């Protein structure tokens, strides 16, 4: 039987810790076994930002942290044959590959064999009006406002590139678990209609794709779920065996914890119907999955089941959503909450009187910062107390001037609002609205090539 494949999870999102992959790579190298490390760095809106960056500079549009992520580990990965797979190509995998070549050259390394996977960019193959018609959960009109539209590709091109000898595979949008399924399929050589095996590799990918979320990150609750060494939490390693079992673990000497509870939380993360998790390669069913302890920081996972892949590919479509304006001001001491409520009323009345055309919302940080609602009913139903609170205004509109004018209404509370307000901060952020489209497979041509 083919020996097991070790796959490390190197990043769970754009902005993850860039020093966390170092002990993972060290552990993979020490093992002496076939190994890969994957990086998931693409959120829904990241691609819209990347498309914009690419349109301003053809050499950009990939993960801004790419060099910071790879510089500490590139040499050791290449020396030990640890394959690197990442969607850090974002809107420009070719430019990302060029950046990696520059990084390798600067470090005095021989030129790595880098493959890019392309074909996720729907704007290259379909009109905006057609993409708008495919979009089912949002109305994007004639599609003229579409900034980015990317299909979630599967694992096949990643696997083919690895089988052809790629040491590094750079993708744009692919289904997150495909980053792991690709190396698994290349290693074991299974068929693309072996649904249970595809489901098994997909489950491994799902467990690894969020980095530390399976090893004690995003888990700690003091006294209830204690996690040692969260400051140095170890990122995950899956030991994937050809018999359909895997062990989730983490590098020795790192913080964090791998337990049945951490693995269960991550298995169900972002899952809707647990019998039907749709991916481009397989429909994953986790209802029969068994999770059992297998030693210190070792958890065995078995029982993933699969059914035939869906006929369509999901895509994320981004349109410009104008600007988000935010402004905050603090009130503390006696009557703080009452003064903050008065301030909210002042701002709301001024914006209404002046015909502000956008959406607005208030939060009272210290009383209700996140459980509330746009209408303010949650906040209104709470006891109106608080000795140190921060009023927050959020507005959204397409017209930047209106958004700035609205947030200035919080600034002007300094001299015109209730007594004792201080610490105003304002910010303005471009917004992309997203929708999901379901694209006929024949409209998407996924390809890979060495660069």
């Amino acid at each position: 039987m083919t020996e097991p494949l070790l796959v490390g999870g190197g990043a769970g999102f754009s902005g993850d810790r860039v020093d966390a992959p170092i002990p993972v790579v060290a552990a993979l190298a020490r093992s002496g076994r076939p190994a890969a490390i994957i990086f998931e760095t693409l959120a829904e809106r990241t691609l819209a930002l990347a498309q914009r960056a690419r349109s301003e500079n053809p050499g950009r549009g990939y993960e801004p942290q790419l060099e910071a992520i790879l510089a500490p580990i590139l040499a050791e990965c290449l020396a030990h044959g640890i394959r690197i797979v990442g969607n850090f190509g974002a809107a420009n995998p070719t430019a990302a590959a060029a950046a990696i070549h520059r990084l390798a050259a600067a470090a005095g390394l021989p030129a790595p064999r880098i493959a890019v996977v392309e074909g996720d960019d729907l704007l290259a193959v379909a009109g905006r009006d057609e993409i708008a018609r495919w979009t089912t959960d949002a109305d994007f009109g004639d599609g003229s406002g579409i900034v980015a539209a990317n299909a979630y590709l599967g694992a096949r091109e990643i696997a083919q590139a690895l089988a052809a000898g790629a040491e590094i595979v750079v993708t744009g949008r692919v289904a997150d678990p495909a980053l792991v399924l690709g190396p698994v399929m290349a290693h074991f050589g299974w068929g693309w209609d072996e649904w249970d095996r595809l489901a098994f590799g997909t489950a491994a990918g799902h467990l690894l794709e969020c980095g530390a979320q399976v090893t004690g990150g995003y888990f700690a609750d003091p006294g209830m779920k204690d996690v040692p060494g969260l400051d140095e939490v170890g990122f995950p390693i899956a030991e994937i065996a050809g018999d359909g079992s895997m062990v989730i673990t983490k590098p020795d000497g790192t913080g964090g914890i791998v337990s049945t509870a951490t693995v269960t939380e991550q298995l169900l993360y972002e899952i809707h119907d647990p019998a039907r998790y749709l991916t481009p390669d397989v429909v994953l069913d986790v209802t029969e999955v068994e999770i059992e302890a297998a030693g210190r920081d070792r958890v065995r996972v078995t029982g993933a089941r699969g059914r035939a892949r869906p006929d369509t590919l999901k895509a994320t479509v981004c349109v410009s959503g104008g600007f988000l304006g935010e402004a905050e001001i603090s009130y503390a001491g006696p009557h703080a909450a009452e003064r903050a409520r008065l301030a909210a009323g002042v701002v709301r009345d001024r914006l209404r009187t002046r015909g502000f055309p956008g959406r607005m919302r208030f939060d009272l940080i210290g009383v209700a910062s996140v459980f509330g609602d746009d209408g303010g009913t949650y906040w209104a139903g709470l006891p109106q107390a608080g000795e140190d609170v921060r009023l927050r205004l959020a507005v959204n509109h397409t017209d930047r001037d209106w958004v700035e004018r609205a947030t200035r209404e919080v600034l002007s509370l300094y001299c015109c609002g209730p007594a004792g307000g201080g610490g105003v901060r304002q910010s303005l952020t471009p917004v992309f609205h997203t929708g999901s489209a379901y694209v006929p497979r024949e409209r998407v041509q996924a390809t890979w090539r060495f660069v």
Partner: protein
Amino acid sequence: MANDTANAGVPLHQVAHARAGDKGDRLNVSVTAYDRRHYPLLLEQVTAERVAALFGHRHAGQVTRYELPRLGALNFVIDGVLEGGVNRSLGLDGHGKTLSFRVLSLEVTLPPEEPGG
């Protein structure tokens, strides 16, 4: 009955842990019993209706509950609760990541043989 009173009104947080995830304007919250013995309690008391009521002010749409007996867990899928989702929400937590702990604030009644608090 004194025992029942002592075991009533216990936060779900005491017997289960939870994690939230988002896709668009839809939230899922998994709720897992620390101890498998409490899975029947989750089945009986942590209903879709009670979870929906926690998000009434957010105008949550359909709430679907999936049961995972092998994991001792429930998975709730809550539609339309994220006020447009992460890219449209005006709230600070557009992902709804913090909402797992709103579900854990639900009050449950422990079996009478167990001490409350």
